[in-house]
């Protein structure tokens, strides 16, 4: 891995933006909401202050909320594979990068996802402090970016200057033309040490650890799931904002001369998600559906396929759940039973 020293991260960002369209988390105009938006002349300098995470992870860049799969005009089918412009996502946090790697596997054979993914280079950024509600160290997803999950990784050192790590040839090509001083091995050593210090600043997450054990040992009583199911208002917020959630449904929309098949994000918390044509539903109660959701996030069953849990510790579900059954609430309830 090559590494360089960087005084001005904005200069790097501008250099990258001169080559491809660039998206980065920034405040929506006139508000204090951190959203993924295109870089413009109004975009402010990169900051390392809270909030660290934008409302959405980066998944909608590859797996959009809605997407046309093909068109049919009454006699012929028309392919609608995307032909995206080359783009860069700048400032992706470690949890969200782990989730992209997770979805890369899930959508390995999905040409729509892959077309967008191949057109995108990722620039990660290390989190130098815990974010509100985040627990990435507990699920091995941060706070610093894992090797190989981004093309470039930026790390702010204690003197406020930056360490730039290059993980792919595409990343190396991006920084051609920038005059950068090579970093030395002690810079890398210091970064490794700093990650331990940042990780130590996260609040205790024993409820998460205990909860994972209970889920994997099938020790959570059905009544606990039912009680939490009663709190599920079926809003779909957790699955919409979860960086690893990937379920979709498809449907045909009539258009002028035929129809188009579109897919959109689905949610496993909906009653009709698994309801069969007969009306029979293998997950008929809200409690069973809540249980299934968390099983998918924390069961060892899936680590064989994905090499990690389906939760990357971002905490977005806790913030967006109106029924108080986001990850912290659920894992506290689970770890308190028995």
């Amino acid at each position, binding site marked *: 891995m090559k590494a360089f020293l960087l005084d001005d991260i904005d200069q790097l960002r501008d250099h990258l933006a001169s080559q491809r369209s660039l*998206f980065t988390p920034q405040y929506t105009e*006139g508000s204090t909401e951190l959203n993924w938006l295109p870089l413009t002349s109004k975009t402010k300098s990169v900051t390392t202050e809270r909030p660290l995470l934008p409302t959405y992870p980066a998944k909608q860049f590859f797996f959009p909320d*809605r997407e046309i799969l093909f068109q049919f005009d009454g006699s012929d089918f028309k392919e609608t594979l995307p032909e995206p412009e080359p783009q860069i996502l700048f400032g992706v946090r470690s949890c969200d990068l782990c989730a992209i790697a997770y979805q890369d596997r899930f959508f390995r054979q999905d040409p729509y996802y892959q077309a967008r993914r191949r057109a995108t280079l990722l620039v990660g950024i290390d989190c130098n402090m815990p974010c509100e509600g985040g627990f990435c160290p507990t699920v091995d997803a941060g706070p610093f970016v894992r090797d190989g999950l981004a093309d470039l990784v930026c790390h702010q050192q204690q003197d406020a200057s930056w360490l730039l790590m290059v993980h792919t040839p595409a990343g190396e090509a991006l920084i051609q033309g920038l005059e950068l001083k090579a970093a030395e091995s002690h810079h890398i050593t210091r970064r490794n040490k700093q990650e331990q210090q940042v990780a130590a600043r996260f609040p205790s997450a024993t409820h998460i650890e205990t909860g994972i054990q209970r889920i994997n040992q099938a020790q959570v009583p059905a009544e606990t799931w039912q009680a939490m199911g009663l709190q599920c*208002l079926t809003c779909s917020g957790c699955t919409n904002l979860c960086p690893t959630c990937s379920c979709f449904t498809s449907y045909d929309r009539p258009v002028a001369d035929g129809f188009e098949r579109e897919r959109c994000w689905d949610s496993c918390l909906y009653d*009709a998600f698994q309801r069969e044509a007969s009306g029979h539903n293998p997950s008929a109660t809200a409690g069973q559906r809540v249980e299934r959701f968390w099983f998918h996030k924390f069961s060892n069953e899936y680590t064989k396929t994905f090499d990690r849990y389906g939760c990357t510790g971002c905490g977005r579900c806790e913030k967006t759940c*109106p029924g108080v059954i986001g990850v912290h609430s659920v894992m506290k309830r689970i770890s308190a039973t028995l």
Partner: protein
Amino acid sequence: MDTASHNISKITSSICPYCGVGCGIGLRVEQGRITGVEPLANHPVSQGKLCTKGWSTAFAVDPIDRITTPLIKENDTFRPASWDEAYQVITEAFSTAIAEKGADALGIIACARATNEDCYAAQKFARAALGTNNVDHCARICHSPSVAGLRQTLGSGAMTNSIDDIEKADLIVIFGCDPTENHSILGGRIIRAKLAGTKLLVVDPRLTRLARMADLHLQLQLGTNIALINGLLQIIFANGWEATEFLSNRCENEEALRAKVAKYPPERVAAITGVPEEKLIAAARMYTEAECALLTYGMGITQYTTGTNNVISISNLALVAGQIGREGTGINPLRGQNNVQGACDMGALPNVFPGYQEVAAPASREKFAASWQQKLPECKGLTSLGMTKGALSGDVRCMLIMGEDPVVTDPDQHHVQQALAALDLLVVVELVMTETAAMADVILPAAAFSEKAGTFTNCERRVQLIQPAIPAPGEAKPDWQILGGLASRLGYNGMNWESAEAIFNEIAALSPLYQGMSYPKLAANYGLQWPCNEAAPNGTPLLHSKQFSRGKGRLIPVSHADPAEMPDEEYPLFFTTTRLHFHYGCGSMTRKSPLLERETPSGVLFINPADAQALAIRPQTRVRISSRRGEVETRTVITDEVPPGTVAMPYHFKEAPSNRLTNNAQDPVTKMPELKACAVRVTNLEDGTK
């Protein structure tokens, strides 16, 4: 949709277009189209959360199926027309009606989903451009009794407290509503409060989600609210649990109320309501012992022939217990639409100008006549149901309906259809083809909330800004521009505003409640709660803290009365209407989402296991439901959510319109129809065939 890429171009901060909670929503724009929403993490009401309807907003405003040009009906089909031509047809018909029968032969239905600016324009159009007070909107069938009842007892018909107060209460009382279904983000805050130790008391004939979580559930018979509350008051007075000091300092007419409720001892009330005496006593104790008890209610109070009296009895209870005028207390009606509070505030009602200034008061008429440069009509106008009645009798000749679908949402569908068919001209301003729009002679294409600037007022009186995320499709325009253009054709030029902001400034100048507000101030504060004026420049989260709007709180004795139609031998079951979390109103927005549409069948009857067994009904059995007004066929869901003897249907589905069955009997004060109770017979259509 362009398939080349999915590049986010911008996010526009706005307000959710569904219920009256008023959640913050970011509209994500890609390639000139709204493709998704982002909850606003810092919004004071929603705090980064949305319900399933809010999350599906991109589907609701999808360009597919939108009406993009004016349409004129010829030989029973619609053809595109120019704005000029459409205006011409309307102007001719309106002018003829005025010449032949006077301006009261016209009626305007404004819209609780449109902006304040649109609603203000609608009532100004009726009053100044046409010369009639025949202007109303769907608050008639949701919270007109709240406005009428609370104005008599407190002097103001809006939520007394703020949504934030949910977390400040020790006890939350939920009367005749299920906020987790219809006001989910507010309902979620009740769940959060409950988990943190707040007690819950639910009064509802249905075993709702919150009833399952409650510390105490009073499962009363349909239509017995007044008996129940009088019974609680009798227990409170008999035990000396009333707020003595509060009553003597801040209320009047206590003796009359005492005399009335003395006739409602627990044994009588238990017999009427079906709620055991010990539960009545426990509830009276809980409500009076709580340091801060916040009461919230919904359609289970208002949609009765006794709607106004139901609201008055709610007010009696809060006043006697002194649970009002402080943080964490109060009387909090939950408003169904994003801007039903605002539509009322704007005077889209037949009896009041903007800011609830009475049409009957000469001083208000003079004030508005001077500002609007027009002589104004004196007599009170017709309500929405009065207009449909007038259409049948020939007194009302033309109507203009903005974005409402009375064919699906109003009681007694056959009656509504006959009335609209009898008009000389029906004009509908709409986004998509609804059942009502299909009956129109002229359809005018409206801009959606995501395509215009303006303000919505949520149920806690918070006036919030919306701004256009994308241009309106085709020739669609905001309602206020449509009405302004029509007013000019009719010879009135007082509605040629340059922007929504100019209208808002006119509203602020004429309505004391909004006096201190402006677009920049609203933008800087996530909205402001009215009244906002010199005395309260940053708005008023809490009403009635020192004194009531009318001075003293008035206690008004009211009596129990049965619903207009009770079950009998011919129609043995009680029938009530409900709403589902997944749908909204007539479904014209929510039913565009494939996920929401998949979630529920298009029509369903909820029936208790005991009644189902008696009729040999199994899940998904095909049944016919008949009332004295009509019949509907649908399928059953068996659930203990409804009590034995009562069946329920949601009203969202044109395929199984519950309003073919509902009773048009009305509250004498507000003309609110009795949508919550009538009598039906259920017939098993599969019985004997198997």
